[in-house]
């Protein structure tokens, strides 16, 4: 018996990256803008969407894919805000990949929406590594997490196309310096747009809505 060494040099993420690229092409053809929303658990993804959907729902047909390990509490809240919603159960997985995202898109007729928001699993590490096929990536940093988050999770801030700073009403109670946070974010991703909001009171959510609207129009061109 002889030992043979097969030289492969195969990138194991190739399948994911190819599928993600195909999904983006399909969404472009369908004129459906897919926003991948990422953040740590408890930063206010669902609350942000609940405040955002009423500002966009008269202009755009909106669908939300809620990824959670195993529950449907978020999907129920999204329906109450006025958007179509489906729940993706990741069954313990800490992130979504292009395959799971595409299955989600297939299961609720993505072409019938102008905007689909993918609420990724609450996690700042793994979701940053897997291209989902989204048109753009948004991430939420909430005030209680600290203004040094961009230094601890650099990749998340590099793959994001916009950073939302949520829970600004908490800033006086936490040692959170918004200028320092902006500086730290720009250190990781120069020139990235930063939108401070308070999802609970609705402050600043109009600016996030305007950013999304601009991106949808661009995507549909």
């Amino acid at each position, binding site marked *: *018996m*002889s*030992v*043979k*060494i*097969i*030289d*492969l*040099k*195969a*990138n*194991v*993420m190739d*399948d*994911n990256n190819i599928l993600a690229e195909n999904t983006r092409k399909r969404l472009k053809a369908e004129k459906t803008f897919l926003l991948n929303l990422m953040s740590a658990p408890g930063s206010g993804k669902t609350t942000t969407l609940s405040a955002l959907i009423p500002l966009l729902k008269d202009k755009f047909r909106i669908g939300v894919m809620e990824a959670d390990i195993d529950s449907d509490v978020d999907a129920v809240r999204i329906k109450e805000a006025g958007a179509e919603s489906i729940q993706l159960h990741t069954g313990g*997985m*800490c*992130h979504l*990949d292009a395959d799971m995202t595409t299955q989600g898109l297939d299961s609720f007729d993505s072409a019938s929406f102008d905007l689909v928001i993918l609420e990724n699993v609450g996690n700042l*590490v*793994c979701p940053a*590594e*897997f291209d989902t096929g989204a048109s753009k990536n948004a991430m939420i940093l909430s005030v209680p997490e600290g203004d040094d988050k961009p*230094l601890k999770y*650099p*990749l998340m801030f*590099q793959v994001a196309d916009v950073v939302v700073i949520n829970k600004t009403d908490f800033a006086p109670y936490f040692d959170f310096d918004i200028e320092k946070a902006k500086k730290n974010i*720009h*250190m*990781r*991703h*120069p020139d990235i747009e930063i939108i401070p909001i308070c999802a609970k009171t609705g402050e600043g959510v109009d600016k996030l809505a305007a950013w999304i609207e601009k991106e949808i129009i661009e995507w549909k061109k």
Partner: protein
Amino acid sequence: MHEMSYIIRLADLAAKTAKEQEAKRVKKIVVEVGKMTGIEPYYMQKYYKTAIRGTILDGSEIELIPVEVTAKCACGKEYTPTAAYDYLCPDCGGGSCKITGGRDVILKEVAIEV
């Protein structure tokens, strides 16, 4: 925990190669792991043993080769980001860089018995 995602992809790819080559068994797979993938080698080793049970890869080893992160700054400097410079460019202090290496997991080779 994302190690399992990588392991499943690696094992599928290696098993496919082994079958194509009509291998009797697989001795070892060699994997290059970028340092910016957030992968813990300890868990890769641990999950690999579980993932390959009952497959053509059963009994094989996994060798992990760490790959440094490399970046190319807007100023043209190529460097490895380090904490000593806050991961910024050591020449110009800028943060406008493209990551050029260290984010991939590559199945470099598969050693098989034929």
